[in-house]
Every structure is written in structure tokens, then in C-alpha cells.
């Protein structure tokens, strides 16, 4: 199943957060969201926990953070 990719790098806050929330609202329940951001989004983590979602964050050498948002029971690959 394809992940939904959101490239929110260099968007003015809170636009990245708004885009993620809009995408999460319309995705299929088992679909994952891959967010690319130029910084680590601590406030988003609060919201994901509240929504019962899990996330994995990987910093890239170019400074981009890749945040994979997925259902709690989903295995990360």
C-alpha cells in the first residue's frame, strides 16, 4: 500500500501541521503518512499521541526530518 507523502519543508508554521491534520482526516485507516520537514515537530507528536497514532522520526544528512506516521499496531519498514 502506498504511503501518502507530504513535503512540508520550508512552509511557515503552522501550515505543515495543518496539512498533516487535513491528510490524516481523509486517509484510509491503515494508510501511512510520510512527512518531510526541515525541523523536528514536537507539537505534532502531542497531537498524534492524542489521536492514538504512532510515529518514527529519522533525521537525514541534508537536515530534513522524515516522520512516518502509522497506526500503533503497524510494523515499520
Amino acid at each position, binding site marked *: 500500500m502506498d504511503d501518502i507523502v507530504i513535503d512540508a519543508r520550508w512552509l*511557515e*508554521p503552522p501550515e505543515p501541521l495543518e496539512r498533516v491534520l487535513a491528510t490524516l482526516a481523509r486517509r484510509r485507516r491503515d494508510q501511512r503518512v510520510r512527512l518531510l520537514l526541515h*525541523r523536528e515537530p514536537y507539537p505534532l*507528536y502531542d497531537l*498524534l*499521541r492524542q489521536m492514538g497514532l504512532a*510515529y518514527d522520526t*529519522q533525521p537525514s544528512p541534508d537536515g530534513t526530518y522524515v516522520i512516518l506516521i502509522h497506526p500503533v499496531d503497524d510494523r515499520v519498514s
Partner: protein
Amino acid sequence: MTRPGLSFEQAPAFGLPLRFFLTAPSFLLLAALAAIPTADAWTASRWSPAALALTHLLTLGFLGQAMLGAMLQMLPVVIGSPVPRPRLTAVLGHIGLATGTLLLAAGLGWSHTTLLRTAMLCLAVGWLPFLAATAVSLARARTASTATLHPMRQAWFALLVTLALGFGLGGTLAGLWPAGPLQALTGLHAAWGLLGWVLMLVMGVAYQVVPMLQLTPVYPAPAVTWLTWTLLGGLGVLSFSTLTAKPDTGLMQAVVWLPVMAALAVFAGVTLWLQHRRRRKLADATLDFWRLAMLCLLTLTALPALAAVLPPVTRAPLETSAGLLFLLGFAVSVVNGMLYKIVPFLAWFHLQTQTGAKAGSIPNMKQFMPDSLARRHLWLHTVAVLLLLPAPWLPPDYAVAGLLPLAASAILLWLNLFGCMRLFRRHGGRLR
């Protein structure tokens, strides 16, 4: 790598930082109004009781309230480490700082020992829990980025030194213990407070928020690493030479003030350069408040050279102008700019988390704080700063020309922040 999310119970409610942000403008207003009848004293000397009282209304009252509230909010968000017992810390900090500042200003202005003693007690109630709670937060910080963490830890240390010196001086003025070298220690207290706590905290915050909010490239690594260490080193040497009563030699000037002024100039210059290279060239009041602040900081670095060529009689007005430049031109401008980002973001974020609203169903940040309202404040504040800078050089009656727009700017700031809170509550937001 999976990072644990912040505990929602630990993140402060909107009402906690907001109480500080809504209180801060009232101290700016009070300072502006109190400065009108005392203009002959504070324009003549920064050592006058009126100048000391007004300085503390600005530093403890306006800047202290705003910075304390911002730190309680930003530590969890920026360095990923919540402040323990946020409600207790905020309530004690807010009440202790507000009452302590009023009493201290009155005690300093009227040289009243009972007022000074009560002020010290209130300020201790306000600052000590804050120092303890933020120490825990800074020690536990788990952020991968040290760019902000190190300056914040350094600023915390500078705050500790500032408060220790402040309480020492306050105790002397209140007759609690014998006098030391008052003027030298007051200079140290001011240096640690302004160049240490205020400037290093602004630097640490800038390294994160200027690239984040103004979409600029990141600060160059050498600047991030060395600027705050340079300030800390300068303050350390200054303290050593003061406490060992070394004369104020040319060598001391070179060792302390040249590197410190160079650090100020580099920070201001790099920030302006980064802002010039920002990715989105949209007009933004926060950006312009920061630009004004950086221009004032750059101007400040030129004053020592000016002092060297001007006759000694100009030293007193130059010192007062330098104080105005740093406090109103730099520090108040930065805080204003930050408030116009922090408060609408928190309103939007808390409303989102409380209501779980779908995108578009709640006001966005620009609706919480229209740029036109912030810009009106920016102009009023800029006019006030420009009119007040020459006040120490002119007849005292002139000062009112800058103090009235300053008072109006404080009222406007409060109205803008209050309007944001009212919109938040109208959409069902809860402050607790």
C-alpha cells in the same frame, strides 16, 4: 528511531503562559507613565533612584514576565523537555514577580527599606521555583540539537548570577547587610542581566525560531558555538577584575569589551543577513520587530567608539541612551515580535487539540493575530524608540514626546493579545 511524544499532562495549558504575556504590557505602560514626572532624574543619570526603578519595571516587569512565560512554554516545544510542576511554577512565578517588581520599583524610587525587603521576599517566591523547575527541564533535555540548548543553559546560569547579585545589592539597600562596592556590583548585575540572561536567551531562541518562523537559512555553526561562550567569557573576566578590584585599564577594555561588542555585532549582522536571504519574502511584523532590534544592537556596538571621541561630560547621557537602545530598541522589540508569533500559535494549537477540529473550521494564525494590528504596534513602538533615544541629551520636558507613544504601544500590545484570547474563547477554547 522512535521518540516518545510529550506527555499531554505535562505540556502547559494556554492560560499558564498567557497570564505572563497579558501582564507584561501593563509594566511597560507603568514604566512609560512613571517616566513622565521623573524625566528630570532619569535623563540626568542612570544611577538616579528613578532610573533604577524604571529599569526594573522594564527588565523584571515587562521582559521578565514575557521571558518567564515564554520559557515555560518553549522548553517543551523547542528542546523537548517539559518544566516539572508547570502550574505551581507559573502561579508562584507570576504572582511573585508581579508583586515583587512593583514593590522593588517603589522601594528603589523612594529609597524605602521596608518596601525593598518585602520586594526581595516576593521576588524570591517568584524566581526560586522557576530556577529550580527550569534547571530540571534543561538538565533532562533530550534534543539532538545543542544549538539552542547550550545558550539556554548559559542564559540560566547568567540569570542565577544576576539574581544573586541583585539580592546582594537589594539586601544592602534594605539595610540587611553591610555595603560592598555598590557601583561596581551594580555594573556587574546589569552586565550579567542584560548581556547574559537577556541576550544569551535571545540568541538561543533565535538559533531555533529565526530559521523556523522566518524561513531563513540556519545560523552558521561557528556563530552558534562561539557567540554565547564569548559573552560568558567576557562576563567572567569582568567579574574577576571587579571582585579583585583591578583598575579599569585599557587592557581590560580590550580583553572584555572588544570581544563582547564583536559578538553583539556578529549576532546582529548575521541575523540581518539571514533574514535578507529568507525563503519567502512575505511582509511580516515579527520579522520587522526583529530587524529593528538587530539594528539597535548594531548601533549599540558603535557607542564605545563614540564615547572615545566625545568629551567626558557626555558619558552620562551616552550611558542612558545606550540603556534605552538595549532595553527598548533591542529587548522590547524582540519580545514584541515573539509575542506576535507565540500567542496566535498557542491559541490555534490549543484550540486544535481541545476541539479536534477539522482543518478550516477554526480560525488560522493570521485570523488570531492580523498582521495589520501587529504592524500598527510596530510603527508606534519604532516612533517611541526613535524619539526616546535623544531624550538624555535634551531638556527633560522633551521626554514626554517619546513616552506617550510608548504608553500607547503598550496599550495596543495588550489589546492585540487580549483580542487573540477572546477569539480563542469564543470558539470554545479553554484556558485551563
